[in-house]
């Protein structure tokens, strides 16, 4: 895709962003790309190894990376399209287990990643509360904390599935806007107690301190109050800037956009605020011209990550591997088909299976060189079965943009090449 592209330096990217911001430059900073050839000794047993270092990096031979992306139909990568990228996709085909390394967590932002000094950052909670208050990150860290694993998925993930023709895609292209982390922070309910939320408060505006000032209305249902976390931690360290440093809202199972990053304000009210993000965007247009609004939960979904689009397999025994998840609780079953959905076999689920979290599945499969169509379907604890693309499109048409969760089909050709198809 990008020829010699090997390594993207986060530090340089941040420094560059900060410099541009300081200069008041309008353009967003482009990722800095440099090639560094790793040099390993002939025999690592004959030379002393490296000394301890303060902050670890992956082995220089590991080059898995996020893939830059724009809107539907826009090319992916870090080449000429980079100035128009507004997201980056997780390399699901390269990952093990269910945790997404923070450096590979997908990104979606609406006017760049802000660089925020945590010492100057504040969270204000006001509106229908007894005590409007301002908190620092340090304040929040002193409150009782909670950690949980949860996926965050952009509701635009797999939006290319709505296209009439399947693109020549990898699983990173199609499904890379979902990631799982361990998130740590304060329960929303704890903070609502501290500020004395009024009984009549039924909606909450959450606002970010990015250049988009992204604002979303959150319904204060029992589930939300019980599960929402104001996070400062991700996979054991502070949130990454791309995931909302220093504070973000986490609403497990809800579409990514409402998990407001760089959180600076919560305002309690009695009605949704009807911001641009929950009207003009993130609504699902149906064939009759009406659109679903506040379609917040991410429905059950799964995808085979190996083998997947643009990979090449060899005859013999393989392990089919993939990820399944649902915003409505736990995955109870994943079934795999090698014949385009005519027959299904239950895959093994890797323990622990956690609610609203990526779940790893696997199934051994012997490939004898025949044409095959590999599919997986997720069944969740509500009994919901991931639909075929055909069934989904029959109800929602092809104009929805968001919330595509149809069964993914990978065609294995006789020569072992794997490609994205509609089946």
């Amino acid at each position, binding site marked *: 895709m990008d020829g010699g592209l090997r390594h993207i330096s986060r530090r340089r990217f941040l420094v560059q962003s900060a410099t541009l911001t300081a200069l008041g430059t309008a353009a967003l900073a482009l990722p800095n790309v440099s090639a560094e050839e790793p040099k390993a000794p002939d025999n690592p047993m004959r030379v002393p190894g490296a000394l301890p270092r303060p902050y670890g990096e992956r082995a220089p031979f590991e080059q898995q990376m996020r893939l830059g992306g724009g809107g539907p139909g826009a090319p992916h990568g870090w080449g000429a399209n980079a100035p128009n990228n507004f997201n980056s996709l997780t390399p699901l085909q390269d990952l093990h287990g269910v945790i997404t390394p923070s450096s590979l967590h997908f990104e979606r932002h609406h006017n760049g990643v802000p660089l925020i000094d945590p010492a100057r950052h504040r969270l204000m909670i*006001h509106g229908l509360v007894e005590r409007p208050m*301002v*908190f620092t990150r340090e304040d929040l860290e002193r409150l009782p904390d909670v950690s949980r694993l949860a996926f965050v998925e952009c509701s635009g993930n797999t939006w290319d599935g709505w296209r009439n023709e399947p693109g020549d895609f990898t699983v990173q292209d199609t499904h890379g806007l979902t990631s799982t982390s361990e998130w740590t922070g304060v329960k929303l309910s704890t903070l609502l107690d*501290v500020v004395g939320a009024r009984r009549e408060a039924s909606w909450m505006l959450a606002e970010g301190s990015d250049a988009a*000032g992204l604002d979303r209305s959150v319904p204060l249902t029992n589930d939300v109050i019980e599960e929402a976390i104001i996070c400062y931690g991700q996979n054991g360290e502070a949130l990454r800037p791309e995931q909302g440093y220093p504070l973000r809202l986490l609403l497990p199972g809800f579409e990514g956009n409402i998990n407001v990053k760089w959180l600076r304000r919560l305002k309690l009210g009695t009605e949704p605020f009807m911001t*641009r993000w929950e009207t003009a965007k993130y609504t699902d*247009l149906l064939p009759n*011209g009406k659109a679903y*609004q506040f379609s917040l939960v991410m*429905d059950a979904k799964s995808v085979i990550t190996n083998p997947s689009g643009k990979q090449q397999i060899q005859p013999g025994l393989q392990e089919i591997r993939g990820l399944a998840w649902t915003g409505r609780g736990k995955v109870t079953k994943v079934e795999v088909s090698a014949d385009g959905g005519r027959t299904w076999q239950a895959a093994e689920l890797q323990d622990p299976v956690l609610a609203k979290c990526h779940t790893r599945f696997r199934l051994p499969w012997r490939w004898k060189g025949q044409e095959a169509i590999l599919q997986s379907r997720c069944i969740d604890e509500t009994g919901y079965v991931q639909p075929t693309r055909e069934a989904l499109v029959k109800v929602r048409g092809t104009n929805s943009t968001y919330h595509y969760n149809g069964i993914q089909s990978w065609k294995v050709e006789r020569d072992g090449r794997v490609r994205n198809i509609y089946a």
Partner: protein
Amino acid sequence: MDEYGISMRRLLLIGIGTCILGLTCIFTVSSAEENGTWQVGRAATKDEIKAWNIDVSSTGEGLPAGQGTVKQGVQVFAAKCAMCHGPTGTEGPKDKLVGGRNTLASPKPVRTVGSYWPYAPTLYDYINRAMPFNAPGSLTPEEIYSVIAWLLFKNEIVPEDAVMDAKSLPQVQMPNRDGFIPDQRPDVP
């Protein structure tokens, strides 16, 4: 027993003492939580709330003083918006803002301010906080009201002599006001 220099009686006393101490601690911690007396955060001042409370609701709550006309909006749009949205708001390259009426149920829907956006006051909320893309938050209330007036005029929603302010903007009926329905999922049989 005695070889450790401690008698059963002393052990018992220490045990009871520890229990009492433990219970006291539990009681202290739980009562602090129940009373919401975590000593964190501070009261927000009225001035702070005023400065931060920038959102504008669908009914126009939060709209500031000031006003703008279609005529002024022509200039604001040309100077600050047209480079991304096109000279007439239809060309792009970024979001199309004008036109698209009666396309939502077609194979190629065009979602614009005129065809899709359901509440006029939230145009203020969005433009004020996020536009222009290269200098968000830089427009004055007059410029924002003006550019909204121009957008609504170009979408044939208000007449050319319309004046937009905190009173008139909430009165504007958007064409797609009733275009949204609650989430119907699970909706696929």
